[in-house]
């Protein structure tokens, strides 16, 4: 399962996969969960179709990247396309703490409870 890094040193490759767009607002968190709102359609860009298949169940940005074997940067752009089109929806992390902030104790209690039970 371990693999050598794909050849991502070539910016032209990124350009190809993402259709050359470099938009702002593609700052999805690594653990934002994505859910498909529709099925892939014929003629859809293959990466988009693959994401819609993956996200039939909630799937994190980082999981999409690992599964598609694409860098996070590229996946964020692909996801932004699908989000814009309403084809996927995002469940953002509830408690992303601010720089020096902490999540509330209630959430941490739930995390502790979960960890103790695994």
């Amino acid at each position, binding site marked *: *399962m*371990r*693999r050598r*890094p*794909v050849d*991502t*040193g070539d*910016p032209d490759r*990124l350009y190809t996969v993402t259709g050359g767009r470099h938009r702002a607002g593609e700052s999805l*968190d*690594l*653990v*934002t*969960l994505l*859910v498909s709102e529709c099925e892939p359609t014929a003629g859809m860009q293959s990466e988009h179709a693959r994401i819609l298949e993956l996200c*039939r*169940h*909630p*799937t*994190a940005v*980082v*999981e999409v*990247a*690992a*599964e598609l074997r694409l*860098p*996070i*940067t*590229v996946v964020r752009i692909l996801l932004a396309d699908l989000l814009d089109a309403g084809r996927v929806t995002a*469940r953002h*992390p*509830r*408690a*992303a*703490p601010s*720089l*020096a902030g*902490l*999540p*509330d*104790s209630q959430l*941490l*209690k*739930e*995390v*502790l*409870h*979960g*960890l*103790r039970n*695994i």
Partner: protein
Amino acid sequence: MGSATSELPSLRLPLTDRAETGLKIVVVGGFGVGKTTLVRSVSEIRPLNTEEVMTRAGVGIDEPDPASRKSTTTVAFDFGRISLNDRMVLYLFGAPGQERFWFLWDRLFAGTLGAVVLVDTRRVDDCWYAIDRLEHHRTPFVVAVNRFEQDGVRYSLGEIRQALALPAHVPMVECDARDRQSAKDVLITLVDHLYDMAMAQEATP
């Protein structure tokens, strides 16, 4: 010794449809210290590998020459997953702690609950930089000492704390990254620490 699970399912073990909150913990340390091993020990999926690409422009280096904007750096990291309950999913990231990778940390790990600094006492130097950066970013962390049998001199936690100049409030634990219960205990130590800090903060008006 517990079972370091060898038969973990691949990623396509889907989350429940009610999953709504992703959480992050970062495991950081030098090469070969046991990061991937620890993640594998507690993960419900086989650790997966992915990568982030960074152009030099994004690193904050002023680069007047447009041709050099083509220069990119790739950093690979692995991750595992723990479903805490129907709604909450914890992702564990194993990331190299070397200085040259830290420009990516803000981007990759913003919003993390906290970090585990994994230490091999034979190569304590490897984690100084990581600790320094975590303190700088005020990211809460614990230090876990991964004990290797080959480690001839068994320094006590006190000695290691001193060598790392760790403040008293930073929890330290010993662990065996291959052991599921031990790896779980490391995570619980971190979240316990976070909980105490959150309680103290909430008690302060």
